[in-house]
């Protein structure tokens, strides 16, 4: 793939050709050659269904990259492939030069210490308090004395505004608080890479705003590379430096948020502007509606007769 | 922290109780005694029939348990049963040469055991000696058979 200047967006058509789409004004430079994660020709099938049919991604270092797409396109699956929890049927994933799926179990776990991941459900350990949840990565991966662990945990909790909630158990937290605690836990070891799985899904506007701010601030302050998977277009576009749109197992479009906003391709425009129906069908593939209904009636009659 | 200590204490008690239970099963239920293995006195006896006597059956003297049957094997020379008994070492050098051994039954249908009774010979049995004078097990079927045949004769 060619070196892309920040002003342009590239659309990868179904035929695999690159096409210039639009440009935006002066902004932060995105250098895709300095990529922390490289995904090449990634294919993944689950059962009979092909979820990814050859995906190429470059996640620039120190930036926030968003991966968007309609639900059911396997965005979470993509994160699991990058984190080495699933194995692709073809293609490779490289993080900081390491081939993720060629690592031994031990090496894989060592690599994951440099990664943080925020799960959609938060996934806090339900038998540990908020404090112990955040302290967990520190306790298992470092030999720091208790006093220092306490300091680090309090700093992390303070940064998500939940220092006062440290004695609570996960069951006592609201959804937004859970996700913030999970965020504090994900950054406890100051990872190089943090992956957010649907960070805004199911949040009220206030906690959504808080999370948007937090993700942006953490990236600016700590220089972490962030990968956000989301279908909340408005929020994602406000924080992302670079965006990939995935649909039908392929990268449909990529570029800076401004470039994508001005995108003319009808499929991309439909998704970005949230139109209910368009080239991306609202319906799951099904036989003709009228025929289906009549067929059902026939079989019901047959059943009654027999 | 306090909760963790309570928990550890509980688990510790649980494990200790398990071991105490094991000791109870050993001492009270299976009657294991800690006597020295070499501090015993071994005697043999040949019986023409042992009935249902088996290893670990008890050996008594005047009704007092003084040892147990160690092993039972067939003596290929005489085709009878050779029983090895392990007796209390305090009996060493006390049993006269003409001591008799009989296989007895506790109750009508109870288990079988060996009863020893001493004679008056001044010579004594040494470790590993064989008791000559033995009385075999009373087999109920044979007894009934005898009784029936005697009864029909008269």
């Amino acid at each position, binding site marked *: 793939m060619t070196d892309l200047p920040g002003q342009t967006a590239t659309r990868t058509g179904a035929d695999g050709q690159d096409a210039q789409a639009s440009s935006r004004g002066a902004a932060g430079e995105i250098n895709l050659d300095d990529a922390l994660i490289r995904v090449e020709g990634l294919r993944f099938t689950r059962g009979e269904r092909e979820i990814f049919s050859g995906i190429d991604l470059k996640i620039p270092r120190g930036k926030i990259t968003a991966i968007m797409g309609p639900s059911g396109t396997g965005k979470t699956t993509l994160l699991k492939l990058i984190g080495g929890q699933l194995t692709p049927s073809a293609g490779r994933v490289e993080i900081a030069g390491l081939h993720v799926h060629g690592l031994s179990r031990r090496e894989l776990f060592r690599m*994951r210490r440099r990664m943080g991941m925020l799960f959609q459900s938060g996934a806090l350990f339900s038998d540990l308090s908020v404090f112990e949840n955040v302290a967990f990565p520190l306790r298992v991966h470092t030999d720091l004395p208790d006093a220092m662990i306490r300091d680090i945990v309090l700093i992390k909790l303070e940064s998500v505004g939940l220092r006062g909630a440290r004695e609570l158990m996960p069951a006592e937290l609201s959804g937004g608080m859970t996700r913030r605690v999970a965020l504090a*836990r994900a950054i406890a070891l100051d990872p190089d890479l943090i992956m957010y799985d649907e960070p805004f899904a199911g949040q009220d506007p206030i906690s959504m705003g808080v999370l948007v701010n937090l993700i942006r601030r953490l990236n600016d302050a700590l220089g972490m590379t962030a990968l956000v998977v989301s279908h909340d277009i408005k929020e994602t576009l406000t924080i992302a430096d670079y965006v990939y749109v995935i649909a039908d197992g392929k990268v449909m479009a990529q570029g800076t948020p401004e470039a994508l906003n001005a995108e003319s391709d009808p499929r991309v425009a439909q998704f970005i502007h949230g139109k209910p129906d368009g080239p991306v069908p609202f319906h799951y593939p099904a036989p003709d509606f009228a025929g289906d209904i009549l067929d059902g009636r026939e079989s019901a009659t047959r059943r009654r007769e027999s | 922290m306090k909760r*963790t200590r309570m928990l550890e204490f509980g*688990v510790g008690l649980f494990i200790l109780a398990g071991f105490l239970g*094991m000791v109870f099963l050993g001492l*009270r239920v299976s*009657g294991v005694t800690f006597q020295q293995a070499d501090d015993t006195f071994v005697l043999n006896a040949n019986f023409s029939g042992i009935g249902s006597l088996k290893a670990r059956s008890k050996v008594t003297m005047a009704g007092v348990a003084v040892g147990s049957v160690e092993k039972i094997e067939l003596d290929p020379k005489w085709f009878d049963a050779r029983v090895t008994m392990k007796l209390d070492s305090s009996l060493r050098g006390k049993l006269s040469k003409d001591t008799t051994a009989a296989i007895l039954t506790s*109750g009508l249908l109870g288990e079988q055991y060996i009863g020893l009774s001493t004679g008056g010979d001044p010579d004594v049995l040494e470790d590993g000696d064989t008791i000559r004078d033995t009385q075999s097990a009373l087999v109920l079927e044979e007894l009934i058979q005898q009784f029936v045949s005697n009864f029909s004769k008269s």
Partner: protein
Amino acid sequence: MSGLNRGPLGAITSLGRSSIDVIAAIGRAGMLLVQAGIGIPSREGIGLWVRQMHFVGVLSLAIVLVSGLFIGMVLALQGYTILVGFGAEEALGQMVSLSLLRELAPVVAALLFAGRAGSALTAEIGLMKATEQLTSMEMIGVDPLKRIVAPRLWAGFVSLPLLTIGFSVVGIWGGKLVGVDWLGIYEGAYWSSMQSNVDFIGDVMNGVIKSLVFGLVVSWIAVFQGYDLIPTSEGISRATTRTVVYSSLAVLGLDFVLTAVMFGEI
């Protein structure tokens, strides 16, 4: 494709498919046992094991001991009515203790353990899977097989023999309660008939060996069902049921095999 799913051919197809699934599941269970069970325990690992000993062992103690007491009492009552017909009621102690030590304590304690602790282990691990706790642990760089599964597996393995011993002790005492204190057998006869017929290695230890095997199998089935389930609420409830059913069957089947090996040639 669709032709293979219908008619007599379909039955064969689905039979083949389900046998492949079963064998694959056994393979996954074996890999789980190896990956979780083998390893050097750390100081922290022992702490986690103690926690689980409390959860699966100490908390199962009450139900196991109460059941043991009642079973011992029933054995004494039933045994007495049979033995008294032969005038052999003195042998009650022997009957109660041998039935308990050889069969009833290992088997009943294992069945109770499967119902009380096994199902709870499955549900707990399943819930962790459903709420992505296992995945997030993996992403933090901690192997859930070592951190979650291993302490539970080992706690089950150690707890069940201890529970079984408790079951036997309480059962024998319950038998004494009924036989001696209620039905009036001479107490000395109760204990002596026991002592002269129970062998420490042959009876007590064989019972303990049985319970070690059952402890491993029940907790293995429980953690595997929890780790391997479909992470939905329906999946959890199904896996919990499967744990109880499979471990009960495994306990009874293995009991026969072990009994045949241990006491078969006598």
